[in-house]
Structure formats: C-alpha cells, structure tokens
C-alpha cells in the first residue's frame, strides 16, 4: 500500500492526466515572475559601479546556468531511477530534460560571451568555468544524439541513462572551477553558507529571475514529457482515445 504512490508515479497515463492541471499554474507563475524580474533587472536595479549596465545580463546568465546544472542532476537521477526500478516514466523525463538543458546551457554560454566582450574585452577564453560549461553543453547534445541513434527505445533509454550518469563527473568540476582555477570567470556572488557579495537592490531581482527560471523549467519539462509520453504510448488505448478526442 505504501508503495502504491510510487508505482502510480511511474505510470505515463497517470502523469499525463494529472499534469494537465498543473500546466496553467506553472505557465502563469513563470511568465509573471520572468516579466517582473526582467523589468526590475533591466530598468530598476541600480547600475553596477564597475561594469555599468552590461552587468544586467546577470539576471538571465546566472539563472540559466543554475538551471542548466540542476537540470543535469535531474536528468541523471531520472536515468538512475529508470535503470534501478525500471520505471517507464522516469526514462521519459530523462529524455525530455536533454533538449531543455542543452538550450539553457547554450543561453548561459551565449549570454556569458556577450557579457564578456564589454567586461573582459573578449567573447571567449578557455577559462575553466567556461570550458566545463562547454563540456556540459556537449554532454546534453550527446544525450539528444544518442537517444535518436537506436531503433529500439529500451536500448536508447539505457544508453542515455549510462551517459547521463557518467557525465555527472563534470558537475562538481563546474561548481568548483572558479575556486580551483582562478583564471577569469568571477567567483560565485550568491553563497548559501556565507553572506552574498551582492547588494540587496540587485539581489532581489536576481532571486525573482531564479524563481521564474525554476517555474519555467518545470513548465517546459512537463510539456516536453507529455509530448514524449504521447509519442511512445499512442498505440495504447488511453492515448489513442486522447488523440482522437483532440486533447
């Protein structure tokens, strides 16, 4: 009995039916938070004393990088759950996380490059943090390529889960890269254990944007997962019924 919820959680049909009710809330929350955070960060937060207005890129750069990393954890953990408990849905979540992670890592790299030009004088350096983020991007792209390389879905699931698990080695390297190799990328501004080195007037809009990106991530992940669920299950009775009704 106690495990019933766990098994239900693994059922694609249960997820599909439940998640349709979550979508409008997530969409509303992420759009609202992102709109408020962007207006705040772009127009109302004070200028940075050293970097001027270019620092305003932080309000998308940091949340995107945050979610790119958190998304990798989520992808690897879903893969592990799929391998251990043979849960159908968790493999689907793992695969849905790959394109979102790739897009967010790209955003982090792109905004970083554009921020680097006026601040460091160059778009790109082979700095430890940047290089390890590029490896993260390649891992995500590799996941997408690998998931399309097999004609049998179960085989692709297992291969992807293994790649995701092996790739987790990169995550602590990214986190620690700014401390281990002090090259160009600045150290973290937000710290959980010590006080942050950022003024509240800049910190609150950043928190708003991080919350907005979290909501957006959940929204995008659920949309992606629902589509993948339908693609896999459309020959089952419940899914074909849904498709026929146009839901």
């Amino acid at each position, binding site marked *: 009995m106690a495990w019933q919820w766990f098994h239900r959680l693994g059922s694609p049909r249960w997820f599909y039916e439940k998640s349709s009710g979550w979508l409008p809330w997530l969409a509303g929350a992420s759009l609202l938070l992102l709109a408020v955070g962007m207006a705040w960060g772009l127009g109302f937060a004070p200028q940075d004393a050293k970097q001027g207005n270019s620092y305003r890129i932080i309000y998308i750069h940091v949340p995107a990088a945050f979610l790119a990393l958190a998304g990798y954890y989520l992808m690897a953990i879903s893969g592990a759950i799929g391998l251990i408990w043979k849960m159908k849905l968790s493999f689907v979540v793992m695969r849905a996380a790959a394109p979102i992670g790739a897009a967010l890592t790209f955003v982090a790299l*792109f905004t970083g490059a554009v921020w680097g030009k006026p601040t460091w004088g160059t778009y790109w350096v082979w700095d430890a943090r940047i290089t390890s983020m590029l490896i993260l991007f390649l891992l995500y792209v590799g996941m997408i390529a690998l998931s399309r390389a097999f004609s049998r879905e179960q085989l692709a699931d297992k291969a992807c889960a293994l790649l995701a698990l092996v790739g987790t080695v990169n995550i602590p390297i990214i986190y620690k890269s700014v401390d281990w190799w002090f090259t160009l990328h600045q150290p973290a501004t937000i710290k959980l254990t010590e006080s942050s080195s950022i003024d509240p007037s800049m910190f609150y809009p950043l928190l708003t944007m991080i919350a907005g990106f979290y909501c957006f991530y959940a929204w995008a992940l659920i949309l992606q997962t*629902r589509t993948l669920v339908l693609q896999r299950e459309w020959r089952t009775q419940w899914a074909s019924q849904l498709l026929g009704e146009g839901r």
Partner: protein
Amino acid sequence: MEFQFDGLADFLAMNGHGPYVWAAYGITLLAMAGLIVQPLLARRQLRREFRREQRIHARRAGRRQPGRRAAEGALAE
C-alpha cells in the same frame, strides 16, 4: 526604487552596453519560447499522423467487409 534611465532612448542605449544587453535578452527569450512551442508543435504533428493512420485503417476495414457498409446503410434508413 525608481527607473534608472532618462527615457526610452537612454534605456535602449544603456550607456553603450545596449547591444550586448539586448542581444543577450533577445536570444534568451527566443530560446525559451522555442522550448515551449516545440513540444506543442510535435504534439500537433503526432495528432495529424494519428488521424491519417486511423483513416487508412477505417478504409481497409471497409474494404475487407464489403457487406458492412450496406448493413450500415440499411440501419440508417
């Protein structure tokens, strides 16, 4: 808290950092919109394929049982 710029032109220029800031925000918004639109388009495509397959099945079923359409017609009358 107040608006940090003098009017729209100043806001867009961002003291010379405008192109960088706006390029970063533009690409980000584009990528995020893509993440929402892509699964919705894929689902629409799937629905289209599903309907087409259903139509083919229905046609085949009709051909296999030539008496069925006649029977349906009789029922309708």
